[in-house]
């Protein structure tokens, strides 16, 4: 079929060239408008989007796979990526404490419950924080609606965060603070190894170690997360940016958020007044969505859309998205900001988040076929 191949190549080459040009224009435009750091963070975000979508690296799917199919490959890849990031982040945080911040937050009653709810909801929607961004960018209709709900939920959660936190929180604990810088890194790597051993024991033969491509993805994710820390001065995060997007829309509608405890605080009020092109998490979030879009359009075929929904299912998906955003805000992050970045920078709350969210995920897996059998069809997930 030489003619059809030639025609296909002729149609795909201009499209791929246009995608490269699109990405370059975005980066140079951001550089011109907001400076080199913003452009660099957009590149990091584009990289996240390309790796997550292109190499199928995700969080929700592997958590489900180890439970339902005893397939531990994806979860092992996650642990590997976190360990690599920790090996870079711990020394950097120790040597540059005035320039770099880890993802540190307190363990609290509401935080743990919210992480549990997030874990449950992410199995219902089949997408976590990063997964929702990636899936929306790659054209998943369910995830696009969930993303809108996520934005609203994150904003609503920010309005109530102070109240939820006041229900009871411990001080911020870090493994560096408990065991020293080297001891904290060793404790983190031992903890990840312990989880890895549990996963390996649970997984079936042949479902234990990731294929080479997934290891490469984990390596690239660790590299990008480390670059995010070096460039931005803080760890990779998702939820803050989405809540800020919601606040931007609400402010544009004429609502004054200055009286709110969260948005009235000087640091957040400044974020609200400044351009999104200067906001770290917004830049990486935008990059993830666009990076996933570029990969989807780069492929010869964009793939099939997820299954059609019944009318009420749209409402269910939107509500689940709101719950995801709200719970992630109360839990001080999602799988990225709390789990990946929290654990890789030594925050004890990252471990508490992981345990609570995984327990919620197990419940979500069990509830999904009962609650959503007639509402949400099985679709793609990250």
């Amino acid at each position, binding site marked *: 079929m030489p003619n059809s191949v030639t025609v296909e190549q002729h149609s795909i080459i201009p499209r791929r060239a246009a995608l490269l040009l699109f990405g370059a224009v975005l980066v140079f435009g951001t550089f011109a408008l907001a400076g080199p*750091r913003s452009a*660099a963070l957009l590149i990091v975000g584009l990289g996240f989007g390309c790796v997550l979508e292109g190499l199928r690296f995700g969080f929700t799917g592997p958590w489900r796979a180890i439970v339902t199919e005893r397939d531990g490959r994806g979860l092992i890849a996650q642990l590997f990526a976190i360990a690599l990031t920790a090996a870079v982040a711990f020394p950097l945080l120790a040597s540059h404490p005035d320039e770099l911040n880890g993802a540190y937050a307190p363990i609290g009653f509401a935080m743990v419950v919210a992480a549990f709810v997030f874990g449950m909801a992410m199995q219902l929607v089949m997408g976590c924080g990063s997964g929702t961004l990636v899936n929306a960018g790659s054209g998943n209709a369910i995830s696009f609606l969930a993303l809108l709900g996520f934005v609203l939920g994150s904003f609503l959660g920010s309005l109530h965060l102070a109240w939820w936190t006041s229900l009871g929180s411990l001080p911020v604990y870090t493994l560096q603070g408990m065991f020293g810088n080297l001891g904290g890194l060793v404790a983190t790597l031992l903890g990840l190894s312990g989880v890895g051993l549990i996963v390996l024991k649970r997984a079936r033969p042949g479902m234990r170690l990731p294929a080479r491509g997934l290891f490469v993805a984990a390596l690239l994710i660790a590299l990008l997360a480390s670059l995010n820390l070096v460039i931005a001065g*803080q*760890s990779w995060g*998702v939820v803050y940016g989405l809540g800020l997007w919601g606040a931007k829309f609400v402010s544009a509608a004429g609502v004054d958020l200055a009286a709110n405890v969260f948005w009235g605080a000087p640091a*957040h009020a400044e974020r609200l007044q400044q351009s999104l092109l200067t906001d770290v998490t917004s830049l990486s979030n935008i990059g993830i969505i666009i990076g996933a*879009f570029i990969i989807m*359009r780069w492929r010869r075929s964009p793939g099939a859309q997820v299954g059609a929904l019944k009318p009420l299912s749209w409402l269910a998906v939107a509500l689940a998205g709101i719950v995801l955003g709200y719970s992630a*805000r109360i839990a001080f992050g999602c799988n990225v900001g709390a789990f990946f970045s929290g654990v890789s920078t030594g925050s004890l709350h990252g471990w508490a988040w992981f345990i609570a969210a995984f327990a919620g995920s197990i419940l979500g897996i069990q509830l999904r076929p009962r609650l959503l059998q007639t509402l949400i069809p099985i679709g793609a997930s990250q």
Partner: protein
Amino acid sequence: MNFTELPSRPIVGYAALAFLSLLLVVDYMQAQPINPYQAPPPIALGSGLAPTAAHCTAF
């Protein structure tokens, strides 16, 4: 709207880009103009400046 037929992936992907475009327009209309002369150093590491950005762990 026909709930039984979803738009293709490229159409939804373009909708996601349209959402980002709307977000940036809304942001542009209300945010303070960016002063390129006050842009931070390219990377935080080695800049000597404390990070000022907000994170998911902020409260």
